[in-house]
């Protein structure tokens, strides 16, 4: 299963990015192979529609879950229809490493 995590940087020690659509990076983590991919978010500075464009980006990687600080109104129905689960982590001090540890236990 693949999971996308919004990240402020491109390392394991980076903190979770609290914003979904305009996060700095997406970390795509594969729970089976434990492979990781860091994708710089091209929608970070777009004027409108960062949320749906970011859903399109991560959904094309076949992910089943997204972990972020918050999700906007426009994308909730979209993620529901794609069967992608939203997981909210409200603690802004969590690193990507810590989140992956949580997933593995």
């Amino acid at each position, binding site marked *: 299963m693949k999971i996308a995590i919004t990240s402020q940087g491109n390392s394991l020690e980076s903190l979770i990015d609290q914003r979904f659509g305009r996060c700095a990076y997406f970390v795509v983590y594969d729970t089976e192979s434990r492979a990781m991919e860091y994708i710089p978010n091209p929608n970070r500075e777009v004027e409108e*529609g960062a949320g749906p464009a970011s859903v399109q980006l991560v959904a094309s990687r076949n992910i089943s879950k997204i972990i972020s600080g918050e999700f906007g109104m426009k994308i909730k129905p979209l993620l529901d229809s794609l069967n992608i689960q939203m997981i909210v982590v409200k603690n802004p001090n969590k690193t990507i490493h810590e989140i992956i540890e949580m997933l593995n236990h």
Partner: protein
Amino acid sequence: MIDPEEIKIAIASGKGGTGKTLIATNLFYSLYTNGNSTTLIDCDAEEPNAKIFFNGELNKTIPVTQKVPFIDVDRCTFCGKCHEYCSYNAIFILPPVKIIQVMEDLCHGCGACLIACKEGAITEKDVLLGNVNSYRINPLARLVEGRTGIGIFSPVPVIKAALKEGRTDQITIMDAPPGTSCPFIQTVVSADYVILVTEPTPFGLSDLKQSVETLRIMNKTFGVIINRSGIGNLDVYNYLRDENIDLLLEIPYDRMIASLYSSGILIAQKTISWQEQLLAMMNTIKAYHASSCYQR
């Protein structure tokens, strides 16, 4: 030559709740009560409330719509061209799983996706954005109100439609929405004169400065009304003096005004001096306008 009697005045402010509608409704009342043909356009289309103060007969409702694409999924080849053409991320597409969806809230109705689609899979449908209501208050007075639908992201198309419906060759008062963003710009752009209503507080001053800077870029003539004078400090007065901006009127901080307003009663109807003050201000504005007309 432009007729100086044909004047459009926008009443705006940066900060909300400074008294735009208080001034707009009382000025409107004072003008028509004293024999001037006047149209009031409530451009605060996200929450119009000028009508509360008047009895009038609704004589027209115009729906405001926008075109959005409708995609025939059976004809779609998932080529992605429409998504590529869209500047607003309003088309969501996942070709591998054959999902395509229009995000109607993001669509600006530009029609680029229709041109992009070579398969004829995209047609257009109308989406209701709101209504423009036109009321006849009396033979001299008309009130036009823009009312944006709930959940609609931008009131601008409804404001445009209200301004078009309210078009007249007499006096027009436009009650602008707060702020200095697109809805404000859309309202003041057609004005001959802008009245900025503020209050003598740090917040009032901060937003007044933003409005002044915006109006100067737009090359608009404007003056300021200070409402709730007596509260706060003198910074707004100092700013007006330093910037050489006309102070049109001061309204004292007065419980009676708040009390009448909150009951939906026009102060100018109760207090003749209000009518006189507002009409005197109107004459000052008309004189500015006339001199600028002759200069052209």
